[in-house]
């Protein structure tokens, strides 16, 4: 198949949409911290994207998509993009490369949830480069690069395991290593700029269309299916989280937007495999599940500050399982549990669990090592004045 201008146009624009999600994460997170850390959150999103951009074009892409080594990692065939051409099947190989780049970039940004308001910038940068190399790249290889999970038949349309389980459980591990923010649980750390979070959420919802529909790698019916179920799941998640929080008190806008993100996360692996009505169930349940996970996390006194674990980790896990439940051969060629395919359900369970354990353990070890070597956390004084001033020398209200 020669290049197709429609497909190429589509994936270029989807790449742009997904790129915008990274600052979207920054704004989403930035609005939920105290104002002394808002610049830090947004800057970490940009920094994540910048360092992963360089990592990816040098070593990341080849480790993920180079020729398979033992089902675990890619070879160095594409080191520094050698051999990645401007032609290809349908879309240029180089376009596939950059579309994958923006996924790697946002994953690291999501992870900053676990260290909000207390990580040393320099340590974060070192951590980020290594994490992407030893956690993200293998996971991408497993699922999409010819690794064991893909071979096993695990389905992950747009990154439920690769992006969301990895960053969600990674954030959990990070939070455990770095410890709670000082004063956590003792005094209020409420969101100080909710409208910024809503704006970030809007950019996420928008960009997610590129994330999921673009994962079809062509402007075809499958992409359209992904688009439609993505939107439905987001809407359903927003409404159920809102409803659940309404029962307990007021329907906050933060609940609404968090529910939308939960729905978006959950549909991500499933979006090329399930139909619209299943999406209502997947997203609707995600809203309730992730909200419960959040409440559980708070009850446990664990400061995984911006709930990447509850939303991306648990939402991604549910999405992987849900793909095994609701997949319909009519959409993506594979049936799930409700059509009697228990095998697929088990494969999904294995894949999601493996990703979860790998991401959690590796992140925990890496964070611990970096903490020992260069210190992961700022000093008390620096934390007290906030990372904006202590790490960037800047402040929001001059």
């Amino acid at each position, binding site marked *: 198949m020669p290049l197709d201008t429609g497909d190429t146009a589509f994936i270029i624009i989807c790449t742009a949409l997904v790129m915008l999600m990274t600052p979207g994460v920054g704004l989403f997170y930035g609005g939920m911290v105290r104002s002394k850390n808002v610049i830090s959150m947004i800057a970490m999103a940009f920094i994540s994207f910048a360092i992963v951009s360089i990592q990816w074009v040098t070593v990341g892409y080849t480790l993920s998509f180079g020729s398979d080594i033992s089902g675990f990692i890619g070879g160095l065939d594409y080191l520094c993009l050698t051999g990645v051409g401007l032609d290809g099947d349908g879309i240029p190989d180089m376009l596939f490369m950059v579309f994958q780049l923006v996924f790697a970039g946002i994953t690291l940004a999501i992870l900053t949830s676990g260290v909000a308001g207390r990580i040393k910038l320099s340590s974060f940068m070192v951590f980020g480069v290594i994490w992407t190399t030893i956690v993200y790249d293998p996971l991408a290889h497993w699922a999409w690069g010819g690794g064991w999970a893909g071979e096993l038949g695990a389905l992950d349309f747009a990154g439920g395991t690769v992006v969301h389980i990895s960053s969600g459980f990674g954030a959990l591990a990070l939070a455990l290593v770095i410890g709670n923010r000082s*004063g956590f649980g003792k*005094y*209020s*750390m409420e969101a100080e700029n909710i409208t910024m979070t809503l704006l970030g959420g809007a950019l996420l919802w928008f960009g997610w269309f590129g994330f999921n529909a673009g994962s079809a790698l062509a402007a075809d019916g499958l992409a359209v299916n992904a688009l439609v179920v993505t939107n439905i799941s987001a809407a359903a998640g927003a409404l159920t989280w809102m409803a659940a929080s309404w029962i307990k008190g007021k329907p906050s806008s933060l609940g609404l937007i968090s529910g939308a993100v939960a729905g978006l996360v959950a549909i991500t692996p499933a979006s090329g495999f399930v139909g619209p009505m299943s999406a209502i169930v997947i997203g609707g349940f995600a809203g309730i599940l992730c909200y419960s996970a959040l409440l559980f996390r708070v009850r446990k006194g664990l400061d995984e500050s911006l709930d990447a674990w509850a939303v991306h980790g648990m939402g991604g896990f549910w999405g992987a399982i849900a793909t095994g439940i609701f997949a319909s051969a009519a959409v993506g060629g594979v049936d799930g549990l409700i059509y009697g395919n228990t095998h697929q359900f088990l494969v999904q369970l294995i894949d999601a669990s493996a990703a979860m354990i790998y991401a959690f353990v590796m992140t925990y070890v890496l964070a611990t090592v970096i903490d020992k070597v260069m210190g992961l956390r700022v000093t008390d*004084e620096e934390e*007290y*004045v906030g990372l904006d001033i202590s790490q960037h*020398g800047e402040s929001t209200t001059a």
Partner: protein
Amino acid sequence: MKTVKAVIRPEKLEDVKAALEEKGYFAMTVTQVKGRGAQKGICLQYRGTQIKVDMIPKTEIEMVVGDEDVRPIIEIIRTSARTGKFGDGKIFVSPVEIIAAIRNDDEIVSE
């Protein structure tokens, strides 16, 4: 009558409010301010040089109360806002001569 003005850590506001409320002191006006104390702010070690961060965000509480309430309020604020570290803040007490309501013509004029 006196005005009791306390400059406290912003994160302590909820505690202070609750503690005051418990003893029946409700009325207050709260302002977001920035400040530095005699310690000249916080020093961050930075590449050998010290960077001084003065002008730390603080919260100012102002309560106009009868003379007899000054001491108890000072104690409540001290108990609820203290961490024991620099930056806990200060309480200032000054005289007030008239308190006039706007809603109606109630007025208290001191002696």
